[in-house]
């Protein structure tokens, strides 16, 4: 026992600074979640604000537009999650085939640029690029005889547009982790495969993909926690009354409610609800990854 303790106490010590910081800056503020069950008034503080029980949750679930915004959120977030896993993954595989290092670096740097542009800026640019009056995309489509598409104003096109533009902005950044994992694969594996006569496609399938599958699972699991986040900044800058029916999400809804009510409590209640759902997804995915892939994510 003593020997065990002697061997493990440094591990506790290594964790100590992080644990202290988390307690101070995360767990103590988490107690503030009680304002979700209050009618919080800033000047009364958390201790003295009147209790509201489940009022804010009731409001969220009985509000006529709630079903719509929750559905929209789930749909948009789900497709964003899937595409933001697959596109960077495939992109990383393609880039991995590039032998010329200078070209590889150039591409890598360029595709990660849009990550640093805010949606306010990109929103303005997208309205121009996607314009029905001679926007780049519609000009390109007209070469194939396609009639101009009102990407941002048509309920049929809004969600695909949001998802594709989000991937365009983020795939380069998301790919970094896969690219890093790819460059760590032991080259001797490929050499051996080549001697066995496996072509490049077979090598990719049997060496490359399995090597980065674990990290893919880790990233996928953690991104499931974001299932209730459809991306406020993007939607807020792109949506409009024409596409409310398909594009209005929980966060934009809370924002608009806050414009009139200014209620911190309602926002906190909705945040808590979103966190609960996200947490359930992570727990389930963690268990599933262990059960089916026999892999512990953390």
């Amino acid at each position, binding site marked *: 026992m003593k020997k065990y303790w002697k061997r493990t106490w440094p591990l506790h010590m290594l964790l100590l600074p992080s644990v202290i910081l988390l307690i101070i800056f995360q767990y103590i503020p988490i107690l503030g979640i009680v304002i979700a069950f209050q009618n919080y008034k800033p000047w009364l503080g958390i201790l003295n604000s009147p209790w509201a029980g489940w009022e804010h949750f009731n409001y969220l679930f009985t509000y006529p537009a709630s079903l719509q915004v929750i559905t929209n959120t789930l749909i948009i977030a789900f497709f964003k999650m899937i595409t933001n896993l697959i596109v960077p993954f495939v992109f990383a595989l393609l880039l991995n085939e590039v032998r010329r290092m200078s070209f590889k670096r150039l591409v890598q740097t360029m595709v990660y640029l849009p990550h640093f542009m805010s949606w*306010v800026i990109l929103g303005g640019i997208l309205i121009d690029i996607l314009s029905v009056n001679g926007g780049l995309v519609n000009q390109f489509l007209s070469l194939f005889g396609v009639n101009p598409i009102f990407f941002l104003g048509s309920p049929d096109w809004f969600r695909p547009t949001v998802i594709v533009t989000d991937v365009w902005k983020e795939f380069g950044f998301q790919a970094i982790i896969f690219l890093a994992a790819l460059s760590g694969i032991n080259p001797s594996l490929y050499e051996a495969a080549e001697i066995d006569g496996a072509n490049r496609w077979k090598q990719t399938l049997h060496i490359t993909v399995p090597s980065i599958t674990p990290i893919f699972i880790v990233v996928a699991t953690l991104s499931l926690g974001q299932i209730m986040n459809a991306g406020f900044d993007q939607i807020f800058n792109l949506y409009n009354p024409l596409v409310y029916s398909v594009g209005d999400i929980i966060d934009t809804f809370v924002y608009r409610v806050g414009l009139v009510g200014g209620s911190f409590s309602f926002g906190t209640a909705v945040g808590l609800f979103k966190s609960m759902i996200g947490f359930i997804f992570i727990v389930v995915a963690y268990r599933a990854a262990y059960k089916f892939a026999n892999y512990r994510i953390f």
Partner: protein
Amino acid sequence: MLYTSKAYRTFTWFNYLFLLLLSVLCLLPLVHIFAVSLSSNAAASANLVTFWPVGFTFDAYVETMSNPSFFNSIFVSIQRTAFGTAISMFLTVMSAYALSKEEVKFKGRTLYAWFFVFTILFNGGLIPTFLVVQKAGLVDTLWALMLPHAVNVWNMILMLNFFRSLPKELEESAFIDGANHFVTLFRIYLPISMPSIATLSLFAMVFHWNSWLDGLIYLNKASDYPLATFLQSIVVQENFAETGLDQDDVANISERTIKSAQIFIGALPILMVYPFLQKYFVKGIVLGSVKE
């Protein structure tokens, strides 16, 4: 060589072309912003600029260069990014190492792990966090921007997975040589982890460079804002209906060209970091499939 098969050569050709196209597509917004920043104000305000400057002029840059608060904000950002990343990586490496041990060897690690993961999803929100930071006396200091998010759980999980993929013999042989966990971590694990650390540092840097809300909340002087907060305040479209703009103000409305110049200059430092870090990626993060 199998690389030279005809099918593979065709693929390579298309692959280069495709990746090049993709890169150009991603470059468009920055090219647009750069073009606007080099255009005359009238052309930019009329939205006549696409990817090539109209009425070429350096005026916006001259104006930006003469704005001390802009450069101050870059300096603040560089500070918080440098120190914030260092602190964050230090904590990441230490906790990831400990948590990479299996439960049998380190009782309680799973509890610790969930303790960390829980904070990815749950947080107290704006006001409770502010109250803590304020009580801690950190308001108006750089610490307020670095400490609350110093433990980056996402990075920690990736690092943990990396450590787990390293051969177990490393630790065992170190312990046989009389080392303890501290020595093993800093003398043996760290040197072979540089590629992973470079990657995760990049994430930490980008996080610090892009964060803007904390600057607004925890700093009381606009002159102390980091760049992201500064840019956020200038790019948000001004709602003149609410600010009560009138005839006296119209001459002073900030010009799109200047905004663009500031955005462009502001993007440069973080863009230069990536190619620099890329040389560490040669041996990247390798995560084996760890089975228990």
